[in-house]
């Protein structure tokens, strides 16, 4: 466990708990222009500047999941070519 992790430990737990339970707090995190700065300002968690891109990539990858659509089972019985689709 790194020195920084030990220092951040309680803050990280609190931060993740807050994200889980506090809708407004989570919303602020998601809508902030700079999530790294948000972590530092609101949760006292220091993240290396090099991790900024990783954090942004994580948020981007999560957002790409929406709208949630289960993958088409192309070629399987569950998927079909349809004659008419009205939405």
């Amino acid at each position, binding site marked *: 466990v790194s020195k920084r*992790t030990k220092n*951040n430990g309680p803050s*990280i737990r609190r*931060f*993740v708990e807050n*994200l*889980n339970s506090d*809708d*407004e707090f*989570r*919303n602020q*995190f*998601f*809508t902030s222009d700079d999530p790294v700065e948000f*972590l530092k300002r609101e949760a006292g*968690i220091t*993240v290396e500047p090099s*991790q900024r891109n*990783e*954090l942004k990539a*994580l948020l981007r990858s*999560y*957002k790409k*999941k*929406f*709208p*949630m*659509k*289960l993958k*088409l*089972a*192309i070629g399987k*019985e*569950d*998927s*079909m*070519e*349809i*004659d*008419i*689709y*009205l*939405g």
Partner: protein
Amino acid sequence: LSDYSIYSEFSEGLKWIAKKHRLELESFPKSISPLAEHYLKNRLFILTEKPVKIDVRSGMPFPYLAYWFAKAFSLDDKIINKLASTLTYISLTVSIRDDLLDGTVQSAHGHVCLANLYYDKYFRIFKSIFPPNSIFWHILSNCLNEWSRYESWSYLFEYKNQIKPFSQAFLKESSRYLVAITLPTLAAIAIVTNNQTKIPQITKFLKNYWMGWKVVDDTKDWQSDLRMPNFNHSCILYYVSDKINRKNVLSKDSIFSAFLSTDFINLVYGTIQKFYRRARRDVLTFKSPYLTRFMDTQIVFYKEEREEIINTRSIFYDQLDKLIVK
């Protein structure tokens, strides 16, 4: 019956409907045919040039509901294709009117004209089947009034915090037009097969089904609904808007954030399950393997979708935890 065969069994009927639309398109005046072509090929996929592939488990009520009810009521006549085509005409009419009301169209008069042309075709099919004194006309005029009620509500509605967007009271209003546009076709099938006593049960099924479907639709369309007047009455957007106390402008990020809450996920998917299960119970009366399968597959599909979101949420938290602890 498989999930697939409840649709594929009626492929010939669908081809008949597509051919009818193709011939009509060719006969339309030049002033309206490009617009009609847009709606038939791009807005709705009635005359598809490329095959559209879809996971049938997500459910396709239009126009298959007509075929399933026809089977349930033993209607084995060519009239069924005509009646099923009314669901395509009314879908076209509704889509054109929706675009018109959203203010996204260039030629308002052209849209009114095309919507009227399709509504006329819709009306004439019923006129060719039912005598003037049929109970059907009472049902159709009532449905037309219900559709009008929806349009007025949609314009006048002002969202207030005390309204619960996932409540039956709200979803009943926001899905009212869907019942109004599907009931005439299904009622017609009931009447021509002497099953008019079952119309109240059909109505009950449609109400529950469309309330659940409205939530499903809102889970798919919330990104585009964000740009629409009144958020297109999206239960997702109204709910999240309340949760963030309207201090900020509602953004996509707020909705992404909301889907990290298990309470929110359970509310969304629990509401879908509640109404779909009621709709399933309602169709049992008709003893139709098609309708039962239709509901069963969707209930399972959206149960799996909920699990997928819960899983996505857990992965996100795990990765975030690892990243900031690294």
